[in-house]
């Protein structure tokens, strides 16, 4: 069965995560080189519910592995089942979320397969599939060829539009969980300290307001009113995270979150290549920085050279004045 298999991602209660739809797009793009079709595998305590939500995307089959031990994701419980179903396919793909990046290399090792992570494009050349990946902190893209019979990949979510339902009803096939290895008995999920926020999720927000080290201890004091006014998510440069002004999961960049919102505001960010690699697919980029020579201005659609401690509150006031504030 030389086809592609999408590994879906769900919440604990069996809701399909939006990220899954990007991996479906990836599989559809690779399918012409791979026998033309793709299937989907869902694992979880409520996998049947999730599988039912995935029957309208044109998959040849939706596999559902429902098991109470799969309620909370751990690679140790998931990898052998994914490998077992996956060995009948020639490409296994998930979206490069923290779960996808955790799980898929483990699956690749199980299958002794080569892995291409965080792909920004999948290229079909005849019956060959090639993977374009950002490397060197975003300074270069490498087209990677995998030489094993089975390929394992993850798709950079911002580069693959979510697949829309295409009609039809894919058959659902229940599959049993494969007994995990000794590792599974030595891992347990203790807690998830979710960032409780009224703001949208960083990778899915329409508007992102990101701050750099220049904000210092006033990071949130300055950015929160603006993010509230714009209904935006808040991001940060690596320098701001390193300095402790913003939490680690706020980091936008090659080694952090990859975002592609409609509007990205870089506040006091100089524009290291590492950061740019994580946000350059944004539709419109605004930079506010007091250093007019900062590299961020080379990629910004609109640049404002100003002291951010004055410009940001002024921007919040201006938005309110024009009736463009959701605060």
């Amino acid at each position, binding site marked *: 069965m030389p086809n592609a298999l999408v590994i879906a991602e769900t919440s604990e209660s069996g809701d399909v995560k939006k990220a899954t739809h990007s991996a479906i797009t990836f599989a559809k793009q690779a399918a012409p080189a791979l026998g033309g079709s793709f299937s989907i595998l869902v694992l979880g305590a409520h996998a049947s519910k999730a599988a039912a939500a995935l029957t309208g995307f044109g998959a040849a089959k939706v596999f559902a592995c429902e098991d109470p031990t799969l309620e909370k994701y751990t690679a140790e419980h998931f990898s052998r089942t994914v490998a077992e179903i996956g060995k009948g396919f020639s490409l296994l793909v998930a979206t490069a979320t923290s779960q996808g990046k955790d799980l898929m290399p483990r699956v690749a090792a199980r299958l002794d397969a080569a892995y291409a992570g965080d792909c920004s494009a999948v290229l079909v050349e005849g019956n060959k599939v090639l993977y374009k990946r950002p490397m060197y902190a975003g*300074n270069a893209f490498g087209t990677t060829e995998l030489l094993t019979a089975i390929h394992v990949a993850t798709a950079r979510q911002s580069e693959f539009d979510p697949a829309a339902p295409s009609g039809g009803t894919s058959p659902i096939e229940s599959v049993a969980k494969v007994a995990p290895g000794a590792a599974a008995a030595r891992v347990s999920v203790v807690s998830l300290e979710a960032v409780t926020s009224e703001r949208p999720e960083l990778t899915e927000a329409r508007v992102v307001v990101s701050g750099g080290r220049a904000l210092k201890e006033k990071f949130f004091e300055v950015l929160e009113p603006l993010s509230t006014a714009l209904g935006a998510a808040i991001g940060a440069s690596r320098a701001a995270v390193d300095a402790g002004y913003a939490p680690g999961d706020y980091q936008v960049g090659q080694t952090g*979150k990859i975002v592609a919102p409609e509007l990205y505001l870089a506040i006091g960010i100089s524009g290291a290549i590492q950061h740019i690699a994580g946000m350059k697919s944004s539709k419109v980029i605004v930079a506010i920085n007091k250093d007019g020579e900062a590299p961020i201005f080379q990629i910004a659609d609109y640049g404002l050279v100003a002291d951010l401690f004055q410009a940001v509150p002024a*921007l919040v006031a201006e938005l309110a004045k024009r009736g463009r504030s959701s605060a």
Partner: protein
Amino acid sequence: MKILVAIKRVADPDNANKIKIAPAGNAVDTTGLEWKVNPFDEYALEAALRLTENGKSPKQRIGEVIAVTLGPKECEQTLRAALATGADRAIRIDTTDDALDGRLVALALQALVLSEKPDVVLLGKQAVDGDSNQVGQRLAELLDWPMATFAATIREEQGALLVGREVDGGVLTLKVGLPALVTVDLRVVAPTSVYSLHTDPAHKYAEGVRFAPLPAIMAAKKKPLDVKPLADVVPGAALTSRVSKFERPAARSAGVRVKDVAELVDKLMNTAKVL
């Protein structure tokens, strides 16, 4: 606790303008680039040192830290730096950079783990040259060990590690029983991120990684450094992935400068139409 730390030297990618692609487009020309330790691996080493000491007397190891790298002789500089910082001994698997891919690195490390039998393997979450983010996960599967990737915090418990992982939307805490594998993220070198059982929970480390004083750099020259040929560690090693073409990212052109916030809002509303 015995810890094996995998370390890679990378061409410093922060020096963006120096990354050149060879005319044939099939290689990145690293001439003129400075080598440095992959920052995430440097953080993994720092975490290993914190896990094998009482934070109040960091010169004294409680347990053992072994630094490992794969590459040509020049990489021994990277290992000597790790030894100077506090690692007890080092192993270099002799090979060339172009003879390696993530799968082979994981297989080589698996062989070392089976002979060294560490309690913990620590690695950076990814190397900032290939940005593959796969070796740790692959190694954990090959060993059938539990793993905690993208660690922001590590706390030693009796026979286990409590690891706070950076995940989408927050921090997920996993408990992994030893032996276990951990890959580290940026925040693991914050002052209160890593604690061994010997360190007072109220202790605060200095931010970042520690630096080796001169006497330690001298002493490191005498610490053991073993060399093993890759062919002995992974017989029949063959690449299963290769990069056939390198390209520079498409340039995004600079736009316009606005004079004040009023003009900015005006452009966003009326020209870009995103507000």
